[in-house]
């Protein structure tokens, strides 16, 4: 790899473009691969295998060759509903993990820039906010407001879009009430049971960072079950 390639890689990472680095281990030549784009003669003969690694989001050496592939794929989108104290710690933890966080909170006094520097907060109700965010079964939702007016529409969106992780903050009693409301809204028990509530692994902690840690631990664990 040369310095100009390194700079190009950094640029692609910053703009969240998916790509792979292909390296010939014998002579050290590398190239940046993007799906749909052609490769130089050096690597063109291995295009099929390179495509395959990319699809499987895998890193490794192509069998019986000296070609190494490293894929860079977009981080998992995690939507937090509620710009509350716990969310501030979740943002901190997520920095060192492969998660891209969006925060939704219609309450302006929570969603202030001063509380979340360098973080874009969508200051709208969930139904409106989700029009701005692309979501699918690779997305995760963390609902933190325990206000049904705000959490429920977000939970319904997540269930409908089959998010791989849905968690909602609140006591057992709060969660029972929430499940009842979702049942009345027409969701079946499988859908309702896909919500992790009360949210987080059993850590025993009580402070905001401890709760954030238990949530992020559960999220990582579910990410690896995917």
């Amino acid at each position: 790899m040369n310095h100009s390639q390194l700079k190009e890689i950094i640029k692609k990472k910053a703009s969240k473009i998916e790509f792979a680095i292909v390296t010939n281990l014998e002579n050290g030549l590398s190239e940046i691969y993007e799906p749909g784009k052609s490769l130089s003669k050096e690597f063109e003969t291995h295009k099929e295998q390179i495509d395959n690694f990319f699809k499987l989001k895998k890193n490794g050496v192509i069998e019986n060759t000296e070609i190494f592939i490293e894929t860079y794929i977009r981080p998992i989108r995690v939507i937090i509903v509620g710009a509350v104290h716990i969310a501030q710690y979740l943002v901190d933890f997520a920095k060192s993990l492969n998660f891209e966080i969006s925060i939704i909170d219609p309450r302006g006094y929570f969603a202030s820039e001063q509380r979340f520097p360098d973080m874009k907060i969508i200051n709208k109700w969930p139904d409106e906010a989700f029009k701005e965010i692309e979501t699918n079964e690779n997305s995760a939702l963390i609902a933190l407001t325990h206000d049904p007016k705000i959490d429920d529409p977000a939970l319904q969106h997540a269930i409908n879009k089959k998010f791989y992780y849905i968690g909602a903050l609140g006591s057992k009693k709060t969660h029972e009430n929430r499940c009842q409301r979702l049942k009345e809204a027409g969701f079946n028990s499988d859908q309702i049971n896909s919500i992790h509530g009360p949210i987080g692994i059993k850590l025993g902690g009580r402070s905001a960072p401890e709760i954030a840690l238990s949530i992020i631990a559960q999220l990582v664990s579910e990410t690896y079950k995917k």
Partner: protein
Amino acid sequence: MKNSFDEKILEEANDWLNANQKVVLATVIQTWGSSPRQVGSRMIVNETGDFSGSVSGGCVESAVVRECIGLIKDNKPCKKIEFKVSNESAWEVGLACGGEIAVYLEQIN
């Protein structure tokens, strides 16, 4: 098995290069058995032996640093090294977990 957009090791390599340091990039390219870090894990080393990132849980980093300095001294573009438990130097730099890893070193120029 995917690389994080958030991992900043390549950005750090760029900073070092901009500061006129020589940089070798070490990447885990293959693993066998149980190994502490997955394929694609990276570490950078400069000519004075400063390093950042990791290719194992601390088991083989010292040897990787030595190899990287050697690469810069000999002005070689790249090299592949393997670490096995059965290595003669296992007592010094082997992987305690019983795994094997191959690490690729390349000079960024």
